[in-house]
């Protein structure tokens, strides 16, 4: 993509600029805190203390981060193919069907590690299936992937309400959720992992799916940067024309990239369903699919960036809950604002500081001719 901006040193491009954008986003969020009459500095202190101050807080932070690693990776894989998969929310929601069905069938028969394998496959298949139609229509009929995936989010929401209320809910129960899974449908906690550092996770639902999230991150890195398929995906993202000229099958690559993206989003469902609640509830995704957009943007679509970005958002979710105990004015909706601001400053306004920085770093290329910047995104 020809951009009118000069190439900057790597550490500026991948370190300084995201950091600056993040600082601005938090500064604006601080203004909102000020507007409701609380001190932004105290809020920041409560946030950090709530998220990292004690073992249980860290456990919760990592629990949320697990979810966001999955959805962030999902968005990132699609980004590499220059597809904006805004449907992670719906794909994760439908992925829940895969997890729930496997758990409901096998929780009394199989030990958790076997159920977990099957549930992972189930989640991936369901999530990928939900991404398939938008992908196929985008590839063969050129329909706009953003719009179709948004529409699929709403369709998923209707579908899941129907399924939970009419089909999966056990008879004689009021609330729309499945029955609670037996032992074989519950993931063990990772308390031993934090115990190494002398931390007690208490009641935090930090569970085994975190390790799967880390494995998925490594998988995505290998896939995108070390395989032929990843090369083809990146080529498609860089220039559709070049990909066509190189003999890359567009339909195949678009569909595969979206299927992987949907599968990753679907696997997010393991964490809340098998890891925490041991049942599937209405709206268990709770916006995590959209957080994935912010995470992928902040992490520059690279697993090494996505994991810290996911932990940052995990910190916001956990610390945000702590703030709302101390400052009743600031509910968890504050996170939604911060998320929006991060998406705005790290995404849409990412080039705001670039001209000034280019001048600062003495890059003269701007004047001569448009330089092709090989960005990962």
């Amino acid at each position, binding site marked *: 993509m020809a951009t009118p901006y000069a190439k900057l040193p790597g550490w500026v491009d991948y370190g300084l600029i995201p950091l600056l954008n993040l600082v601005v986003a938090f500064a604006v969020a601080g203004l909102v805190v000020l507007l409701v009459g609380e001190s932004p500095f105290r809020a920041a202190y409560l946030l950090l203390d709530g998220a990292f101050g004690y073992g249980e807080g860290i456990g919760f932070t990592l629990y949320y981060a697990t979810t966001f690693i999955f959805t962030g990776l999902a968005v990132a894989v699609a980004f590499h193919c220059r597809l904006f998969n*805004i449907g992670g929310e719906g794909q994760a929601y439908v992925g829940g069907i895969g997890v729930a069905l496997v758990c409901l069938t096998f929780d009394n028969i199989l030990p958790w590690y076997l159920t977990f394998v099957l549930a992972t496959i189930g989640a991936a298949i369901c999530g990928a299936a939900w991404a398939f*139609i938008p992908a196929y229509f985008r590839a063969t*009929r050129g329909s706009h992937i953003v719009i179709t995936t948004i529409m699929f989010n709403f369709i998923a929401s209707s579908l899941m309400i129907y399924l939970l209320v009419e089909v999966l809910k056990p008879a004689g129960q009021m609330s729309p959720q499945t029955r609670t899974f037996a032992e074989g449908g519950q993931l063990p906690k990772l308390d031993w992992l934090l115990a190494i550092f002398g931390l007690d996770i208490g009641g935090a639902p930090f569970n085994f799916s975190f390790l799967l999230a880390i494995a998925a991150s490594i998988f995505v890195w290998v896939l995108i940067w070390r395989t032929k398929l990843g090369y083809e995906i990146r080529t498609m993202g860089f220039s559709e024309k070049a990909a066509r000229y190189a003999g890359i099958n567009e339909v195949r690559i678009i569909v595969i990239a979206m299927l992987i993206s949907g599968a990753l989003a679907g696997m997010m469902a393991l964490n809340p369903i098998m890891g925490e609640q041991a049942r599937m509830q209405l709206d268990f995704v709770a916006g995590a699919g959209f957080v994935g957009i912010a995470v992928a943007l902040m992490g520059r679509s690279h697993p090494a960036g996505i994991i810290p970005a996911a932990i940052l958002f995990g910190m916001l979710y956990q610390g945000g809950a702590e703030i709302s105990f101390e400052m009743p004015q600031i509910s968890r909706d504050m996170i939604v604002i911060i998320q929006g601001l991060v998406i705005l400053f790290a995404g849409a306004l990412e080039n705001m500081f670039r001209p000034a920085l280019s001048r600062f770093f003495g890059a003269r290329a701007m004047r001569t001719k448009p330089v092709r910047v090989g960005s990962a995104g």
Partner: protein
Amino acid sequence: MDMLLLTLESTLRLSVPLLLAALAGLFSERSGIFDIGLEGKMLGAAFAGGAAAATFSSALMGLLAALVVSVALSLVHGFASITQRGNQIVSGVAINFIAMGTTVILGQAWFQQGGRTPALSSAGRLNTVELPFAQAVADVPVLGPIYSDLLSGHPLLMYFAFAMVPISWWVLYRTRFGLRLRAVGENPGAVDTAGISVTWLRYRAVICCGILCGFAGAYLSMALTAGFVKNMTAGKGYIALAALIFAKWRPVPVMYACLLFGFLDAVGIRMQGRPLPLIGEVPVQLIQALPYILTVILLAGFIGKAVPPKAGGVPYVKER
């Protein structure tokens, strides 16, 4: 007959916010600026309207506040996508989240009612108007009830919304501004060559979008209900977007699409748990999902082909 009239009446009422928001999107997208942020602008406007109308007990202040907030948000979108040449989809998504969070946080801090604004008195609401002779012709069979019950007695904003359909058509297709606006959405390079500022033209289009979204939001919190409720747009911005695509970015079909989606909404509410003749009970969720399903099918080109403005979503980089 009564049943039909009631359904049609709620169709009219429910389609107004869709119509205003879809027309808003029409101006923006026709100029080449995709706008996923209709939802957020509407929500922000609904909150500002509800809050200002309750504070000053004045509908006019409410309307003004709604317009200011909505235009401000659309200028943020404009700044990101026109001046900074950022990704328009990303910017729209961001605006939706910012509006969603801010309305709740500020609503709770200012009014302490769980994100609601105080219920509006009649002074704060956008009042309904009777069409002339509504009382006089009420007894005329068939046409009488249609005129006096169905068409008369709605908020002024509803008549404004439907009047905006021919007005938008006229502006887009019969004025110099409209011609240039459509041109900048198809081929900004040509517009630039003609010596017209692409930037300023797109900013004006985005402001038009903000104004119409402001009206849509004000209608939600000040006319349809008496006060703002947390997340009260509930996806209406996306349905409006769907309607806009369904109408293939043309003003009069936008109205039909909005009426259709409003009708589906009205029928969905009315049919809850009631079996249909021949088909049996249709899950209400299916009817709720129908606008989205229809849009997906349309986008795939099974019902005609929806071709977006050619330069839509592409930031304009002046040659240097």
